[in-house]
């Protein structure tokens, strides 16, 4: 458990910082391009990439034990499950509309 620390170097940190700044510029630039429905997708893909880079390098998950790696990953999986069920609910409202239906939509 003890010897998993080969800590990142200053050069690694500077590269991560540069990458995050480039991605920030990219996300602002992409916002001004008309990509239709893909605007949101691109913005979220860039944000997720930035978050992953921060977690892996700045937050040392790459240099931590497998237990911590698994723990962090599990946390985000549960977040996605929450979003999935939330949107499944909202997206499916009104699918079973009928007078007196338990699933009768409110609008």
């Amino acid at each position, binding site marked *: 458990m003890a010897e998993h620390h080969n*800590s990142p170097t200053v050069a690694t940190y500077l590269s991560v910082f540069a990458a995050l700044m480039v991605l920030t510029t990219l996300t602002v630039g992409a916002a001004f391009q008309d990509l239709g429905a893909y605007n949101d997708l691109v913005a979220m893909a860039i944000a997720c990439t930035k*978050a992953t880079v921060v977690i892996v*390098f700045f*937050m040392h998950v790459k240099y931590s034990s497998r237990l911590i790696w698994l723990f962090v990953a599990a946390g985000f999986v549960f977040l996605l499950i929450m*979003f999935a069920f939330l949107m499944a609910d909202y997206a499916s409202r009104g699918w079973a509309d009928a007078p007196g239906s338990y699933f009768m939509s409110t609008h």
Partner: protein
Amino acid sequence: MADHADHHEHHIHGLAHQFEDMAQQKESVLLGMWTFLITEVLFFGGYFGTYLVYRTQYPIAFTEGSHELDITFGAFNTAVLILSSLTMAMAVHESHKGKKNGILFYLISTLFLGCVFLVVKYFEYSAKFEHGLVPGLAWHPHGEHSPQLALYFSLYFGMTGMHALHMIIGAALIIWLMVKTARGTFTAEYNAPVEIFGLYWHFVDIVWIFLFPLLYLLGRT
């Protein structure tokens, strides 16, 4: 029992008695901090989930709301927070070497950048009050989507306000860490408080990484 007496004689600085050694203590501390951060992820997840639902229901009002925000401020603050994450990472880096002055320098830098972020946020909030865009406190009707726009701004203030509160708590913790650093508490062996505070600070950065595109960058084409 003899073992215990032995431990007390060779007391290791910063090692709590329930741990075998520093490595075990650090692993436990890191896991504990990550547990807290995962609860934070799910806490902010509630906000993001609410945003997701209303954004899909009222896309036009959300775009209108986003146009009331200044991208320059948002982008500037994003850069400031990323830079503060770098200085925080450097503070942790210095703490692994037990370098007191290095830790202090990077903690002060992080604190300064955090304050810059909050000052910019203050000016942004003031403008919203002036323009009557604060639901419940200073709200003027804005066109035909006014109620939905109020929803956007409720989320804007809820999400950025909770984020700012995390920054303020973070700033207070940095001052506490600076005092402990100045007293020489942290060494190359014992530096877990600096490291887990770093995790907290980076987490707050990550929240902003998502808030920026979701709140500022809608419908800009």
